[in-house]
């Protein structure tokens, strides 16, 4: 390697962009040639000076606050993210600026968690179907189910009984979803079972639907609780239940 080639490769080398084979060649040349070595030193020291002394302007707090105010309105105008395609990635990008995460109703949940939660909720639903353990407390009386759940969990999930609208409360069980103990309320509509996983959540979020392995899944957050609804029941009727539980579009 001659001095001229070395000179052209130095910046890429210092930026860690030179392939290993060429790097080795260049290093051998630098070891042998003091002029190239000096040029390397100058480049490196300039880079160090910039990294040490150039201003890094962090965003002012007011900017973050203004974005938090403006984003919900912007999100309303945004095209709805399709249920499956690219949902985790797109959400991840915007959730990386937390203000956008709020606007996309991901709240404090990291978007990759949504994918995981969906999986876990569905697994719980299917496992319950396969085993005989659909409910720990099998009762259609909300005044039995609710206190049982409060006694077994560090929170008290709301238990509604929309039997007038055609959804029967069948009971509830404890389950483990998203790394925490949660309540799984079990409802029945005709021959379909619906599991509603409920746990505490600060930020409200609008109703979102998805499909996984042929099952319908809906999620929302309201009144201090997050709800994940899983069933083989059709989407329209599942929407009905979600609204009865308090969901808003």
């Amino acid at each position, binding site marked *: 390697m001659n001095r001229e080639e070395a000179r052209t490769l130095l910046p890429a080398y210092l930026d860690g962009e030179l392939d290993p084979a060429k790097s080795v060649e260049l290093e051998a040349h630098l070891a042998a040639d003091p002029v190239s070595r000096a040029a390397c030193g100058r480049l490196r020291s300039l*880079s160090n000076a*910039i*990294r040490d002394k150039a201003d890094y302007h962090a965003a002012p707090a007011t900017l973050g606050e203004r974005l938090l105010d*403006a984003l919900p309105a912007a*999100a309303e105008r945004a095209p709805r993210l399709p249920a499956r395609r690219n949902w985790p990635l*797109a959400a991840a990008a915007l959730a990386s600026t937390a203000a956008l995460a709020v606007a996309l109703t991901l709240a404090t949940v990291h978007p990759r968690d949504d994918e995981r939660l969906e999986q876990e909720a569905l697994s719980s639903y299917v496992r319950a179907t396969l085993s005989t353990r659909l409910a720990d407390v099998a009762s259609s009386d909300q005044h039995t189910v609710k206190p049982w759940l409060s006694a077994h969990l560090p929170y008290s999930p709301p238990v509604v009984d929309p039997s007038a609208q055609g959804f029967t409360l069948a009971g509830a069980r404890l389950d483990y979803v998203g790394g925490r103990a949660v309540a799984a309320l079990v409802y029945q509509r005709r021959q379909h079972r619906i599991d509603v996983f409920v746990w505490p959540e600060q930020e409200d979020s609008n109703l979102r639907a998805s499909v996984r392995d042929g099952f319908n899944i809906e999620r929302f957050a309201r009144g201090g609780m997050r709800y994940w609804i899983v069933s083989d029941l059709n989407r329209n009727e599942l929407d009905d239940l979600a609204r009865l539980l308090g969901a808003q579009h």
Partner: protein
Amino acid sequence: MLPHLDAAYNLARWLTRNDHDAEDVVQEAVLRACRFADGLRGDPRPWLLAIVRNACFTWLEANRPAELALGLDERIGEIPAPEAEGPEASATRNLERRVLNEAIAALPPQFREVLVLRELEDLSYRDIARIAGAPIGTVMSRLSRARRLLAESLRVIVTASEPGVSR
């Protein structure tokens, strides 16, 4: 808590060179990002910075067209004669923050941008190319020229401040 918002603001602040416009540009860019979230592929940081960068250059076209034109001059930052080498290592070590920041701010925007993305954001050539909307070869060339320009302007400052230097 908002790592990408800082990166976005830092780039905008370096390109617009003042707080007020940087904030406006970032706000507009972030709202735009929200609308186009569906187009995201892969790493969110370069994706967001590309949107911010474009918003900055739109702003520059409207408000600082002369600055932009400077960066398009082919002759700027070309390889100097071997005699005109950059400052000695010790000189850059003793450099004042203010002097360095002013020298970077004086670079044409196209060169300032790649320097900020490389040295302050530690982005790869590939990511910088993506953000700047240019081929990697162009990025490498601009980076070289940016460094040469910077070294040259600092050398001038450094040698001018040395006592006993006759010009």
